[in-house]
């Protein structure tokens, strides 16, 4: 159950590219995410959503302000994070199972136990594959799978080391609509089964409303949080939910906010 103390906390964070403060990706960014919560971040293109990913995972240090995860200031990469991207970036020379197990070779304490307890870990990875519907594909190579299946494997890889925080950057952005909606269900099942804290960055407003407990809307660059919405629908949500009037209303409202945020925004892409 979500506790009261924030699991992820950004206070007055700014991030600047390059040597000077000329290009601010995000500025005066404040947000909190409770443990076990599913938060979606939406915003106009180039609003610094990817910068948010890099800040929370500790890949980039904040230029100003404080980023804290699990009560501690983030100073570098954290092993308790799992990541998945739009590009599923599987390793073509490894089987699906070996791809999923990659984080176990790096994150302690798994890395040092992996050799002795390989069978246990393999069983665990297979369970995950089963959960996302990739039963019996563990000995295949990623390039033998469809895009949607590769993305399922990518979710398994993000979760195999039991991360407390799952960071998703447009994980379904490259998929067709039917596959995408199917994977929303898969992700929801995974989240219900394991309850990690999730931060989902997406352009797809229906995806945000379908999946999240809470939605944060970011402004154009430099990115700040413009608005916050609680999503009232009970879980597990089904695709039927997406046809409720309240669903459409919320999506519509988000769409209007982002259109407003885009006005006056620079038209360039993110670096």
């Amino acid at each position, binding site marked *: 159950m979500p506790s009261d103390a924030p699991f992820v906390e950004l206070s007055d964070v700014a991030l600047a590219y390059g040597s000077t403060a000329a290009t601010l990706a995000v500025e005066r960014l404040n947000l909190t995410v409770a443990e076990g919560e599913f938060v979606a971040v939406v915003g106009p293109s180039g609003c610094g959503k990817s910068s948010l990913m890099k800040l929370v995972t500790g*890949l980039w240090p904040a230029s100003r302000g404080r980023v804290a995860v699990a009560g501690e200031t983030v100073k570098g*990469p954290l092993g308790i994070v799992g990541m998945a991207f739009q590009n599923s970036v599987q390793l*073509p*020379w490894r089987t699906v199972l070996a791809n999923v197990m990659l984080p176990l070779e790096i994150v302690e304490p798994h890395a040092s136990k992996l050799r002795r307890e390989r069978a246990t870990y393999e069983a665990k990875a297979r369970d995950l594959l089963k959960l996302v519907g990739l039963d019996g594909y563990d000995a295949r190579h990623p390039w033998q799978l469809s895009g949607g299946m590769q993305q399922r494997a990518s979710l398994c890889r993000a979760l195999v080391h039991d991360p407390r925080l799952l960071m998703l950057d447009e994980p379904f952005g490259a998929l067709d609509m039917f596959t995408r909606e199917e994977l929303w269900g898969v992700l929801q099942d995974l989240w219900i089964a394991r309850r990690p804290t999730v931060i989902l960055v997406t352009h797809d407003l229906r995806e945000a409303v379908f999946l999240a407990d809470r939605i944060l809307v970011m402004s154009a660059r430099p990115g700040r949080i413009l608005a916050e919405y609680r999503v009232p629908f009970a879980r597990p949500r089904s695709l039927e939910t997406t046809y409720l009037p309240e669903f459409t209303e919320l999506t519509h409202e988000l769409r209007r906010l982002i259109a407003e945020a885009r006005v006056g925004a620079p038209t360039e892409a993110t670096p």
Partner: protein
Amino acid sequence: MSDLPSPLPPDPNEPLPFAHDESFAERFRLVLPWLVLAMFVLLWEAVVRLFHVPPFLLPAPTAIFASLVEWGPQIGDAAFATLVTTVAGFLLAIGFGVLGGVLIGSSATLYAAFYPLLIGFNAVPKVAIVPILVVWFGIGAIPAILTAFLISFFPILVNVATGIATVEPELKDVLRALGASNRQIVAKVGLPRAMPYFFASLKVAITVAFVGSIMSETVASNVGIGSLMMTASARFEVPLVFAGLVVTAVMGILLYLVAEAIEKRVVGWAMRGHR
């Protein structure tokens, strides 16, 4: 009346009119290179005989073959010496090329620092280095090994460095966010990813390694195919010079095939389109 073919159903045992025999096409492709080679040799022989080309200009394939038989033991010794020096230089090139490629490919700073120097170094004609190597190491196998090494080292290094430097940034982020060190990223992703590049470079490197060792042998050695060809041409034994060339070509092809066979085993995943 009855000679009209019945339209349906077709006889399942009758071959389709436009189906071609797969296995025949495959077998034909296997013998095709040998056919081309045989035609080339026949044409060569015919030209030499028809136009009465003197053997000291262009010996006929039969004359080259006769010379191969006549000088068999000497050619065998020389070929073995050249093979050993070439493979030694080639193995050195693999060792230093992979090491250098990993270092330069995994660090943008090292890349910026050393790449211009390496390009300049590679631009120096290796034949100009042989006399310097002779001054340092004397006549014999060592300058030949080093020349083979110097000439085949660069393509390996550049390819390994490219393979490692072009790891997808998202994949690096996934691993770094888990706390992976640079060394782990290179070991888990960079090196396996660089393998197709590495093998592509091996096929170039093994061929130029022969160029290096034979070049050095012609200038500064008294063993090996290069030296044998030098001696033969000084004595106007032109068929023997050509015999040396043929033996070199055969050795080059054999080592190329070895590299290709290892490649197929190790990086079959990268050639999935060709299966």
